[in-house]
């Protein structure tokens, strides 16, 4: 009878095998090497940190923000003890930045910015990662370095060869991705381009006749925008001027409002000037992405160039796709609707954004 009870108790252990759930325990380590400096971010699941360090102070199964932030020093100590970065066999000096939360598909992660200074410029990077394996044998560290993802399965050091070329292309990709995902940059550009097929003729507005004129104007606008955001991107990325991100994000949203309102009110005809003046703000926004990616503040020409090139490519793709369509429909009612109602809608939405970004 004892054997039967034993068999019965654990039926689910062998029968319910297909119940593999959400992600197993993964931590993400993103690193960018530049010169002697490594910068990046480590994201660890809050649930995993609880397993290792017991964050749930009252033991009720709910980890509150208060409990998590109280454990910040313990977490930092745990991470600095268990993550060692090196360059070609030498050890780098590490500092952890101010952590924050990041929401991934399977819950909240603790994101810790990190920065390491190595004795020399790394040709290959040594990662010694021993987080969590002692409590969860199936934990994996996923190191994203120079366009590669390396799986860290145990505490043994792993060597990653850095390749300048992949690093450059990875920044180009980030640039393209950022402009496409950054709906505010796209909206801004759209608002500026939208009226280009509709030009002022002495006193009244009429559809442009010549595609060449339209292309010329759009070219001017895009060039002005590019120049402006490149300037502030560089200034900000090398740390000459840094602005608080809340201010930058709000200002970018307001710049979208301004560009949209200008389509309705027709205050400024020289939209290239608007593109330049307000484009300066967008450059600050791009640089915060680069900083999030962990961009070091020297020897960053390659990364900057790559990222900017990516932004321009992504932008050019949008303009080249849209311009012919706009030119085609410029005499139709649909175009008028797009110009007036579209600009109005963008103005309203961007106003809401600025409110959210400023006060939320």
């Amino acid at each position: 009878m004892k054997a039967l009870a034993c068999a019965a108790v654990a039926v689910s252990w062998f029968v319910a095998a297909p119940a593999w759930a959400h992600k197993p325990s993964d931590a993400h380590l993103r690193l960018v090497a530049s010169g002697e400096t490594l910068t990046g971010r480590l994201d660890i699941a809050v649930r995993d940190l609880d397993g290792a360090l017991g964050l749930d102070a009252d033991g009720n199964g709910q980890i509150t923000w208060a409990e998590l932030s109280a454990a910040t020093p313990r977490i930092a100590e745990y991470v600095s003890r268990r993550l060692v970065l090196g360059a070609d066999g030498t050890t780098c000096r590490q500092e952890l930045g101010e952590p924050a939360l990041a929401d991934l598909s399977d819950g909240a992660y603790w994101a810790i910015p990190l920065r390491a200074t190595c004795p020399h410029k790394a040709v290959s990077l040594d990662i010694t990662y021993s987080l969590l394996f002692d409590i969860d044998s199936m934990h994996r560290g996923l190191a994203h370095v120079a366009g590669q993802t390396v799986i860290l399965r145990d505490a043994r050091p792993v060597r990653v060869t850095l390749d300048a070329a992949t690093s450059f292309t990875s920044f180009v990709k980030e640039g393209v991705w950022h402009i496409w995902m950054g709906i505010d940059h796209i909206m801004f550009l759209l608002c500026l381009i939208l009226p280009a097929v509709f030009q002022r003729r002495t006193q009244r507005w009429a559809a442009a006749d010549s595609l060449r004129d339209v292309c010329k104007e759009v070219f001017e606008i895009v060039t002005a925008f590019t120049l402006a955001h490149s300037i502030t991107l560089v200034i900000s990325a090398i740390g000459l001027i840094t602005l608080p991100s809340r201010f930058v994000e709000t200002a970018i949203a307001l710049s979208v409002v301004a560009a949209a309102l200008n389509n309705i009110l027709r205050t400024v005809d020289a939209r290239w000037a608007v593109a330049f003046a307000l484009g300066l703000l967008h450059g600050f926004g791009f640089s915060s992405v680069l900083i999030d990616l962990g961009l070091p503040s020297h020897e960053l020409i390659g990364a900057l160039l790559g990222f900017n090139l990516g932004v321009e490519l992504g932008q050019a793709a949008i303009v080249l796709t849209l311009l012919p369509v706009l030119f085609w429909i410029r005499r139709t009612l649909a175009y008028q609707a797009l110009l007036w109602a579209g600009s109005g809608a963008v103005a309203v939405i961007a106003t809401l954004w600025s409110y959210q970004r400023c006060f939320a």
Partner: protein
Amino acid sequence: MRTTAWGKPGRGRRKLTVLALGAIGLAAALTASAFVAPNHAAAAAPTYLPTDPARVVATVPARDPAEVATRQALAASPDRVELAVELARGDIQRYHELSDPRYLGRAQATLGRWWKLAEPPPEVLLLRATIEQAIHQFPEARADLDHLVQVRPDDAQALLTRAVVATITADYAAARQSCQAVAPLASPIVLATCEAPLDGIAGKADEAYARLARLVGAVRTGDAGVRGWALTALAELAYMRGDTDAAMGHLARAIAIDPEDAYARNLDADILMATGHTADASKMLAGRELIDSHLVRRAIAEHELHGPDAETLVLAMRERIAAAAERGDRIHLREEARFTLAVEQDAARAVRIARDNWSVQKELADARLLAETAVAARDRAAAEPVIAWARTTGVHDVTLDRFLAQLEVLR
């Protein structure tokens, strides 16, 4: 000059220019998207700081004082295997309750000191085999179980686990032998349930169904886990025989016993979808998408129904497949093949994944999957292993037989 679509003569060249520009732009956008999209998983998520100190940022199992005491005792004397076994059992149980694989990893870590031993204590051997089975390391699980039943021939749990692993890997003689060895240790219903899939695969689904149905009907009490298991096995047999109503009836009872029974729920959803009740299948899995095998079925169902959640579910499934690939896991093959066939509609890829899956596990569901994807890909050669398997075993399953007949036409 001929009047063009633009309404005025002389505009042909301009139209061409506009079209050319458009084509270049579109081509640039498409190239760039192919170039950019795969990398986006690597982009870091934006960070934030909550303002409300009481905000719950993560949920974990509530602290169990007894477990804490045991863990402390183990830390004080790390050699006490019985404490490690107790803790590991708790973690495996938690894995089954929450379907969170991180608890399997925790169980393994707790047993770390004994994990790599060639001959760990029998209790550790059983837990190691259970974990290996759960992460689809069937050869390793089998070796441990073979060893375990030698040192403990009366361990019913070990014998049943061995029977299941041997069935999955198509070693039917070993599975039958393990089931028989359980007979003197457990009730007849356990033996009949253990043998049900073996009889089904041997082409004796009718007899097996009659035998198990009689036992399930006769024994109204007894261990709930065993009853749920027996009802699910009964449903499998009914489905093999094409009696979908009976199968769904048995599954409804199994799910009533344990609403968290993922296996029974999946089978029920599969039968519902196969019989055209896609909306019902989706409904019964709604809110349970944390479990991959539920998510994939719901994504397929909503995709077919063009439901409002379709896009979210499909994206979630894609993300999960990508995340598993990123860490090098290959245990989602069954789900991935289904998804690739039904949603991505890439039959050629689906059949490759189904073949990889067949090399790992050979249950009836895996056979159906390989045959179905091969039919969709019009690739009879890919289904060769399943055709051979069906011929040797003499299996008769209404669903599989239909696919095999369709494959015959492709010959």
